[in-house]
């Protein structure tokens, strides 16, 4: 008899106790969207394209993000401006396919593509989840403030001649016998 009470009634009493004790616990529910959660800076959310410290587009259209993307949701085309800088003619991310894995950010050699803590990307129309460069490109540097690819790489662009990149000596005068 005692065993029967222990197996059935006690268990039910315990359950009732647990349920009703929650009436006095602070609620876990967050009043989203009125109340915004704290997102960690390295959260992998909405993808952006950033600019370098000089305000120029960082993306050089190298295609590494597109090739590393496991769902193949990035497509772009390289073009070149009159300054000799490479940049994407178009840059498209199909967010309806994106899995926010962050591989593109890891692959990016110029810190152009970055994932941000923004996750509010729901749309009523799926077509609106296709983002073009105009939608992706921000005016700041994002998470990485100082990197400027063209200051490091030995490719000449307007305003940065041969020998002016990081660790570069002035161009060789091949006709000189003195060096």
């Amino acid at each position, binding site marked *: 008899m005692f065993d029967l009470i222990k197996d059935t009634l006690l268990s039910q009493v315990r359950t009732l106790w647990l349920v009703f004790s929650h009436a006095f616990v602070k609620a876990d529910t967050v009043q989203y969207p009125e109340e915004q959660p704290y997102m960690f800076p390295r959260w992998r959310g909405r993808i952006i394209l950033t600019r370098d410290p000089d305000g120029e587009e960082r993306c*050089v*259209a*190298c*295609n*590494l993000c*597109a*090739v590393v*993307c496991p*769902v*193949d*949701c*990035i*497509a*772009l*085309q*390289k*073009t*070149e401006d009159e300054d000799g800088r*490479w940049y994407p003619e178009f840059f*498209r*991310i*199909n967010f*309806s*396919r994106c899995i926010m894995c962050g591989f593109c950010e890891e692959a990016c*050699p*110029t810190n152009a593509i970055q994932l941000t803590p923004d996750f509010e990307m729901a749309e009523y129309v*799926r*077509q609106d*989840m*296709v983002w*073009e460069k105009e939608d992706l490109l921000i005016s700041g540097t994002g998470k990485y403030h100082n990197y400027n*690819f063209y200051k*490091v*790489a*030995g*490719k*000449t662009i307007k305003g940065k001649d*041969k*020998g002016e*990149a*990081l*660790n*570069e*000596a*002035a*161009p*060789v005068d*091949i*006709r000189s016998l003195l*060096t």
Partner: protein
Amino acid sequence: MAKIVIDGVSYEVDPANNLLQECLSQGLDLPYFCWHPCMGSVGACRQCAVKQYRDADDKDGILVMACMTPASDGTIISIEDTQAKSFRADVIESLMISHPHDCPVCEEGGECHLQDMTQMSGHNYRRYDKKKVTHRNQYLGPFINHEMNRCIACYRCVRYYNDYAGGTDLSAQASHHHVYFGRQADGVLESEFSGNLVEVCPTGVFTDKGFSENYTRKWDLQSAPSVCVGCAVGCNTTPGERYGSLRRLVNRYNSEINGYFLCDRGRFGFDFVNSEQRLTEPVRIVNGESQTLAAAELSQTLTEFSSGGAIGIGSPRASNESNFMLRCLVGEKNFYAGCADTEHEALQTIIEFAADPSFHCPSISEIEQADAVVILGEDVTNTAPRLALALRQSVRNKALSLAEDSHIASWQDAAVRELAQQQRSPLCVLSSYATRLDDVASDTIIEAPGVLTAIGFGIANKLSDKAPAADARSVGAYAEVIEAVAEQLMAAKRPLIIAGTSAGKTDLIHAAANIARALKEKHGSEKVDLCLLVPEVNSMGLTMMVNKENTLGRALKKLSSGAVSHAVVLENDLYRRADSGVVDAALERLENLMVLDLLETATTAKASVVLPTTAFSEHEATYVNYEGRAQLSFQVHMNHGAAKPAWRWLNGEQECDVETMVNRCSSEARGFDKLGQLLPDPAQFVAGMKIPRQSQRYSGRTAIKANLDVHEPKQPVDSESVMAFSMEGIPAQKDAAFMASAWAPRWNSNQSISKFQEEVNGKLKQGHIGTQLIEKLANGGAYLPPASPSTEVVDGSLEVVLAHQIFGSDELSARSDSIQQRMTDPYIGISPTDAQAQGVQHGDMVSLDGIEVPVVACIRSKMPEGVVAIYCGDGDINPHSLPATVSIGSSESPVGERGIRGLIVSDLLEDY
């Protein structure tokens, strides 16, 4: 065969080769830079170091460069030895000291031999903290970009450009770590083979300029095995497409034809596929207004054209299938050759000789083995450029035989060159104007065509008395040369005679055949190499398809007589095939002219029905090259607009796939019975899987078309081909000839080709090198007599010979952007004496009597007197309207935009 031991495993190798080559042949990974399969070893980069042991007891060993060590019997080496590995890692670290950290903006990235080798050698971080050496770049013309900072000084570029391709304007300059590879000053790279620098350079110093403008990484290109349509050589190519446009074209290895190299016309002349002049809609033109032709109307139109003896005019630039289908539509009797009458006659002769058992038409790789060559009146560099590159190798056979006598291995490149100095195998160039091969020629005779023919007959007569003698008056001055050339040919192991159609003189072909026949008689060899060049990609195929008497002249006559009311012209601009007046007269009375073509031409402008056809990269088709070798070319990308392969238009609504079509052509057309052998055997394919046209890492699949509709469409299905428009399938199947592009794990660059060869420089593993269609007859022909005497030249007028240009003479490639930048306006080449007599200065505009278009006068110091070489431009002058002799008058017209600035000939009197 020798036995060598590599890392404890024993291999059977060829002792005539070096260790690096043999390691690669065995499929082992050993990094290298300066060695190239076609250019031998110089031991410059020190990257292929391996440990060599004296014997099995030697545990220490010494480091040797694999490329400089013969693979002799009993050699014991180790690639994996720790010391060898760390040596290689150190070498690459020092090579990378000044590398500019610009892979993301480098066109070579992703298919870079330097990237591959760096990965393979295990170098990751730059430890050197001093400054990087930098260099200024040069402008190298419309084809090639220069970025000297990326150079690792392997010397491959100058070894290729100067030593292999005979260029003179690229050199290694400065010294030590300042060494610079470029021209003396900015300017266009002069060699016709400069484009190969893109593939020869192991990194991104020389990159494809046009490709850079529409850049796509190698892994993003959709590609398929294709055949170049720039000339009759039929080089194998890999075109690459992205986002619907053709982006670039690279070499595809074929051991018998192009090997590792293409000419610049082939490499850069594909852009017409993307041209805005492409026809996109089937239209009917009624009273000058074009209306789109509906599908229902189309079949009705076809019936109209197939009944009632309509005339069909084929095309040397259309595939066998399209020509065959047109022949089926109009009937064999009404199917006419779409080339000039003289050309048709010459082509018939060439096909006869191709079947002659005394002759052998050599492939490009066989031409490289010739040790005495006579070129009769063919400007090879401008009509079949890849062949000129092969001839430049053939003259090196002297050096190789000297090396053999001195027991120097043929791959010891520097030693062989040092030994031979300027000694070359004989190459005799007979031409009516100075050619680009004259620098390596042992004898150069520049004379009027009549004299050249006479010399040709003279050589044959010298070799054998049975050959008819030449006109003694014309050859008198050349008796010594004739004797010398005859001796050279007799002394050679593998003599070669070259002639062709471009000079427009069948007599020269006869003379060449006589020489070859006389050689066969005296030389005692089974067959003599006789290479007869034809002008276009499928000239041979068309000529085999068409009845001998069905010349274009007869077709046009029939049309102008009003005997027929309907005609179909297949991928052909008649205004480039016959005199404009004659074509006008023929088309004027014709109410129903159907033209199938891919670009707008003068002929499509006269048509009542125009059907758009596909370009070479948009259809699967077969072409027959100058040897009679048929090759299969695959579709690379989707069709442009409503374009279809011509045979599909002509087939109407009947369901037919391309394999059925090839098989039909094979079984029904005379002489084409082996065509079916080209088709891949489905049983070879693993589990019936197709070969993907896209790489395993083709990117953007779910984003490319997402802007149009987020629900991405299914990949287009190719129900006919063994290749798929997809990344799914098995890329490297048993039949490597059908792989979309060469790639192997750890080998992303074109150097991966060694993984697909039976051995380095050998055949592709089970690859398809094409099928020889022409069967030899049982009995050979007889000697041919010299034909009519040379042209009578009236006082004051000059004998006309046609000049050709690699950039401009080919109709399709001339519509490519980068090629256009290298084209010149029509010009005449005249001798200084004639120029003085006519009062013409270099660069003046002059008029030719009877020709409306004025031309630029170009005084060439080596032009024979009394002869004028006329370059007709890209259809500017109709060569068939030219008289045999012309007189020159002055012209008031200003010099055109292009002028002759881009003209590269060896004998310009003065700079322009």
